[in-house]
């Protein structure tokens, strides 16, 4: 198991190698990337920030839970922060497992929990020059009244 919050480009192929062992019959790599359109608006990039110390703890906790629940220690997760361009990977989750069913379930568990619990935020930059904090819709948002920047709820 390994988790990290990093400020460099992610290497999905490297993470795949990290979870590949002769005892595993299946490996699954999830890559989350910056989309060019969100909620109908043209996106040019996303700025990710984190409460880094807590994000690292929470991410490690999630991966530990997935390892226990789904029976594999071959789980590696990296989340990138900083400013990312279109198509760049923000998160890579690699899972190796003797059996494919558990690999899918572990991978899904990690991404869903990550999106609910890990203190990372993103601000989308739009083609019209504006930028907005994006909230996932699972909690309270800043009241946008009077704000120069607004907050929207979205899902991916």
């Amino acid at each position, binding site marked *: 198991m390994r988790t990290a919050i990093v400020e460099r480009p992610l290497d999905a192929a490297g993470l795949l190698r990290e979870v590949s062992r002769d005892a595993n019959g299946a490996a699954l790599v999830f890559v989350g990337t910056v989309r060019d359109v969100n909620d109908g608006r043209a996106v040019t990039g996303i700025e990710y920030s984190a409460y880094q110390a807590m994000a690292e703890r929470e991410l490690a906790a999630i991966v530990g839970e997935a390892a226990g629940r789904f029976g594999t220690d071959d789980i590696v997760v990296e989340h990138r922060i900083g400013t990312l361009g279109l198509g760049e990977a923000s*998160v890579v989750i690699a899972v190796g497992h003797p059996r494919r069913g558990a690999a899918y379930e572990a991978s899904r568990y990690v991404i869903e929990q990550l*999106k609910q619990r890990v203190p990372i935020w993103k601000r989308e930059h739009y083609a019209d020059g504006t930028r907005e904090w994006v909230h996932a819709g699972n909690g309270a948002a800043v009241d946008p009244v009077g704000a120069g920047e607004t907050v929207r709820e979205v899902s991916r």
Partner: protein
Amino acid sequence: MTLRVLLFASYADVLGAPEIALEVPERATVQDVIASLLARPGGDRLPPRPLVAVNQAYASPATPVMPGDEVAVIPPVAGG
């Protein structure tokens, strides 16, 4: 007592700083921290019950806070 409170993302924007020193009663709880924050300039733009972490773990409103604790107010997360 004085607490150091970390703010992130949109919350840092509306309160104007990534970190503030907050005056709270002795034997304060997370709820007291929130009340004190809401009373600050810009605090009216926070939700009424924002999430708070104490020492890097999510905390309930009743969780006590002490000087030296790392207290952080956590906007709705959007990782992934």
